[in-house]
């Protein structure tokens, strides 16, 4: 007997269609959508507004990065439906565990552009108040944040709170051991957590078929005994319906859920990536036609929920934000070198105090040398790096650094 015979446990059916409420062409889906129904027009209009604003922000930041204003920026262009639906499904007290990719989720949750971008501009590793926004730092080590989300959700459950945690993950990140451990801990502990995997079909240059061999990422949920949903990630209506239900399920003691949003990364991985090495313009074009904003726009116009006046107001909001973002990213960066020592430990350490004093003295000496140098411009004994420093230094925010990757 050969194992190629189907067994009851393994599903060998080809990948199902992703769950969808509004199709590529902007029409409401009429056939069965797994019991999910279209959100009301007001909700959809709100999501539309957020997506448009988020995209404008994303495009603006990419442009600023190309100008060298930021060290790096991983764009979410094309993934707005996943990002905005995930955030919209959360209550104010819930926690979000985002990655480097998810700046627009932060924006949508109310974090100020300069606070989001502080890390990408190189000011500090995380620039916003995590407790104010209930957003963990944007995680770079892949899949690690999923475990933090499970831990926080479990703490919420132990404390009998109603706080839910939502973790954002990429398709590539699901290959990491930490993703597995997070899914398993969540299921065993029945933690109130939702995992939203944005399957944008690439991990930098590596396409999905070199990442996994299963039909869908949602299929992975079976191995943990939790519900898994395979959703059109460019359909914000479907994403919102599924993630909201998952959040509600978590909140009411139903345990974790895995939601896969099938989408596409329209931009390069980051500014230092060159996608022409691993995909064609044609590949990208296919997905441009499945744009999450356009299809919702078509639908909203068709039902009369979106007119020129509303469009104009949204565009104005987006342009204002873009202008504000430009403005704050051209403002000089303020950093205090001595702050380097301030947050490493809660308990003071004598050795760190010594190092702080050392840097402080060095900065003072450089400042003095610089003064001297400007008095006697031909002085050649000034070490090369002793340009003007002070304990709170102003930089031009343009950077010539290269090779930075998220």
């Amino acid at each position, binding site marked *: 007997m050969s194992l190629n015979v189907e067994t009851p446990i393994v599903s060998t059916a080809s990948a199902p269609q992703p769950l969808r409420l509004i199709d590529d062409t902007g029409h409401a889906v009429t056939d069965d959508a797994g019991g999910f129904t279209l959100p009301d027009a007001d909700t959809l209009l709100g999501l539309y507004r957020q997506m448009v604003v988020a995209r404008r922000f994303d495009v603006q930041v990419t442009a600023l990065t190309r100008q060298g204003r930021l060290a790096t920026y991983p764009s979410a262009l094309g993934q707005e439906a996943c990002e905005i639906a995930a955030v919209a499904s959360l209550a104010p007290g819930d926690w979000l565990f985002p990655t480097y990719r998810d700046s627009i989720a932060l924006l949508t949750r109310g974090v100020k552009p300069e606070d989001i971008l502080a890390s990408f501009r190189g000011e500090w590793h995380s620039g916003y108040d995590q407790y104010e926004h209930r957003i963990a730092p944007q995680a770079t080590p892949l899949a690690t944040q*999923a475990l933090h989300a499970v831990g926080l959700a479990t703490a919420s459950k132990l404390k009998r709170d109603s706080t839910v945690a939502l973790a954002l993950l990429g398709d590539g990140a699901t290959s990491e051991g930490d993703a597995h451990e997070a899914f398993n801990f969540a299921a065993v502990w029945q933690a109130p957590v939702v995992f939203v995997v944005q399957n944008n079909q690439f991990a930098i240059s590596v396409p999905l078929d070199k990442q996994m061999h299963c039909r869908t990422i949602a299929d992975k949920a079976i191995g943990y005994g939790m519900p898994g949903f395979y959703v059109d990630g460019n359909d914000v209506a479907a994403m919102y319906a599924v993630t909201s239900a998952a959040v509600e399920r978590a909140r009411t003691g139903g345990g974790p859920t895995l939601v896969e949003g099938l989408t596409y990364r329209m931009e390069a991985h980051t500014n230092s990536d060159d996608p022409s090495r691993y995909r064609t313009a044609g590949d990208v074009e296919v997905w441009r036609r499945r744009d999450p904003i356009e299809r919702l726009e078509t639908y909203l116009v068709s039902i009369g929920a979106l007119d020129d006046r509303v469009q104009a107001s949204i565009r104005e909001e987006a342009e204002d934000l873009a202008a504000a973002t430009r403005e704050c990213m051209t403002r000089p960066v303020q950093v205090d070198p001595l702050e380097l020592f301030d947050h490493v430990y*809660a308990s003071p350490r004598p050795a760190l105090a010594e190092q702080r004093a050392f840097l402080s003295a060095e900065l003072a000496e450089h400042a003095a040398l610089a003064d001297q140098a400007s008095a006697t411009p031909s002085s050649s004994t000034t070490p090369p790096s002793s340009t003007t420093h002070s304990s709170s230094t102003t930089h031009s925010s343009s950077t010539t650094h290269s090779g930075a990757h998220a």
Partner: protein
Amino acid sequence: MTLQSMAPPVGARPPAALTMAAALNAAIQDSMRDDPTVVLFGEDVGPLGGVFRVTDGLYAEFGETRVSDSPLAESGIVGTAIGMAIYGLRPVVEMQFDAFSYPAFEQIVSHLAKMRNRTRGRISLPIVIRIPYAGDIGGVEHHSDSSEAYWTATPGLTVVSPSNPADAYSMLREAIASDDPVIFMEPKSRYWMKAELALPVQTAPMNTAVVLREGTDVTLIAYGPTVKTALATAELATAEGLSIEVIDLRSLSPFDDATVGASLRKTSRAAVVHEAAQFGGYGAEVAARLTERNFFHLAAPILRITGFDIPYPSPKLEEYFLPTPDRILAALGTWEWS
């Protein structure tokens, strides 16, 4: 039992002979009684009470909510502990043996150590990772490693190791109360070492070294399992007319420069003893920083008496690997004594 439940405050108990394992157990128990946000989880820490019985009885007392067996995944254990700490809990987790902390390395180094700095002090991670470490218990491969050099080389971590039951209790309570993440390294060969203790006992602050035995000729620096070895060496040395001052470091990171430096300036000679391999081991930092700071007080180079630069051997060979009093004395004998 919920997290909010009130337990009787921890009171004084009559003196009793306690092993280090029992002292650690009492420290966790008292911390959990005093602070409802302390939770305990890991592999086999529940009904079994841990493979060394350090968590014995805690599951029975505090129940599933506060003491639980987790799935078998160390990165998962540390990663979820981080999430719990963000939400205000104080997790105490166990890595069953220190070679089994390695799957958690990324969570420890990239998150546990860096979260506070990353968030400009907004997020504290008051987590204790208990790691039974070192050898001399006849353990098969992977059960006798000494991993302290990995943790001490990582800014953001506090790394401590008790050498006796009193410190085990006092330091573990302080570690659990600390707002910094603490790698708490338990010398497994000393789990069965006994002392007469009246709990709750409070010894020197966790971040300080102590002079365990005064001497005038040599400062012998040890921590965890090698403290007993160092004391035995000092005892033996008396017969040879050598007066050894023994320092128990207790805190590996931070290093107590003041206490150790003062001793060194008195004796002008020092040696550090640990089980881990020498190359790149923690002893290198001890020797380097003491020399930097006290060079002109030194009569001889600081010596390192350590394991060899090889993987930890099998049970039948570990006696050749471990620093012994006679190996230490022989090393001290290589100095020119003028």
